[in-house]
């Protein structure tokens, strides 16, 4: 089970992510991001959205993934809390994500960035640090 930690950033936000495997990395990064937006315990994942993405590498796929979810958040007001992967490789992702509206907004995240982004494989699984534009 992955975990995240917020890293101080002067103007924006950054997350350090530790994950057991690739799906865990994508789930933990999404949860960490949406935990900045809303209290996840207050969200009922009543709506399902299908997501299919192709990218050049794992870093791009991770950025695409967050930006897709943040787009859904901006346009449809959905906060995502549950994730199911039909397929996932470093360059391809097919998933169904579940979310709902949050009763209260805690903060704003506008985009995921590539700034110094490296997805690292470690003996324990995966690790990365991602800067989010607020």
């Amino acid at each position, binding site marked *: 089970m992955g975990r995240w930690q917020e890293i*101080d950033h*002067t103007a924006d936000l950054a997350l350090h992510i530790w994950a057991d495997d690739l799906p865990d990395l994508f789930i933990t990064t999404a949860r960490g991001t949406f935990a900045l937006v809303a209290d996840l315990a207050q969200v009922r994942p009543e709506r399902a959205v299908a997501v299919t993405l192709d990218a050049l590498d794992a*870093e791009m796929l991770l*950025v695409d993934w967050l930006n897709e979810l943040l787009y859904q958040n901006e346009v449809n007001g959905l906060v995502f809390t549950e994730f199911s992967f039909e397929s996932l490789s470093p360059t391809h992702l097919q998933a169904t994500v579940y979310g709902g509206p949050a009763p209260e907004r805690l*903060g704003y995240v*506008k*985009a995921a960035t590539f700034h110094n982004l490296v997805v690292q494989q470690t003996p324990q699984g995966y690790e990365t640090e991602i800067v989010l534009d*607020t």
Partner: protein
Amino acid sequence: MVEKNQFEQLSDYVWELPPHYDARMRVPARIYGNEQIFDMAFRDKSVEQLVNVAMLPGIVRYAMAMPDMHQGYGFPIGGVAAFRYSDGIVSPGGVGYDINCGVRMLASAMDYEDIEPYLEELIATLFKVCPSGVGEDGSVRLSDKELDDVLERGTEWAISKGYATRADAERTESYGRIAGARADVVPKRAKERGRPQMGSLGSGNHFLEIDVVDEIYNADVATAFGLRPGQVVVQIHCGSRGLGHEVCEQAIRALQDAPRRYGITIPDRELVAAPVQSAEGQEYMAGMAAAANYAFANRQVLAHFVRQAFDRVLASKVTDRDLHQVYDVAHNIAKVEEHAVDGKPMKVVVHRKGATRSFPPGHPDLPAVYREVGQPVLVPGSMGTASYVLVGTADGFGETFGSTCHGAGRTMSRNAAIRATRGEQVRADLNRQGIVVRTGSLRGLAEEAPMAYKEVDQVVESVAGAGLAGKVARVHPVAVIKG
């Protein structure tokens, strides 16, 4: 890790890191600011980010950071860099996500005493007509064709719809319309995000503020800008909303492969770049210009709503309710400009990431009304502190490609600000100073607490001391809407 002592002090306000610090640097890296501001630069990663900029192909003169510099992603905020148009690059990360985030100032014929009894009502009305918050919609409905018109014509579109006057357009950077904008290269998703958001502030550090002029430093220039002591003015700070974000996101994504294809070495993937004259470079420039035009139109529509709100609240109470535009500046943008490099005229792409254009007296791009005195530069301070109106100088034009600071600049992270104070406390403190505050997010108020920013006075003293801009006037806030 760059150390302070690796920089050379060139004057009281200029510090330079020679290119031999890292073999990949093509030019020196310069920081503008007094000693205290220079010291602050080493608290976060902004100096490393500035060094990265100095490595980009085609960069001329030096990579620069203004005194409001702080850590961003890709370029530091406060970063300025010019690249040769002939063989240099353009980098979407050097403009950022909120393309043409900028500031507009409107000046009134009113004094504070004229509006004081109605301040609460004014700010409540403004809060209603100028929606704030991420993803928040505006009240202007645009068809597909109208949105394309906004993207390609900016303020000209606003004039055609009755949101702007010709004088507003004249008093807007690039007349509120960046040439070469193409609606057809703006991604569909960007248009979906932008269509409902026209006429909205957004979130983060965006704001709408009523201020009073409390100090004039240069009477002649202030008069030319239509500013006088005691006068009520309005500032609007916002940008291209979700549309600009999507244009930037998709450009950075599309260019991830460009360095390999063009043989460009970049130190950070957020700084992906393409030769400015390549098909990808030109497409980004056209999309960025379209997003910039959207931002000019957005601030124009908000200015129109502000004028309507003043009219509605002050009708039969104040006779002259006119709010004339002082200026509108962009502070996240890349522009093709001509500058002298090594004594010869050169076409360059100037990236200003959290930096403001500041053109000098006599520059042909300035409107007739300001050509003799120079371009107004709007430098908002943190919430509750002063903001400044500056003017472009010939020295600044020669040194920084006509660029100066864009604000106070953060010094504390949002989390640190939240740990240090609470939104209720910030509001109470501002109220005690006689400042009325409206916000949709108390947490946002804490994040933007004045303590999280550098002192704008020091930032402005630094740009004035370095000769990058001249001080004209200072204003202090009496009412704030926080996005």
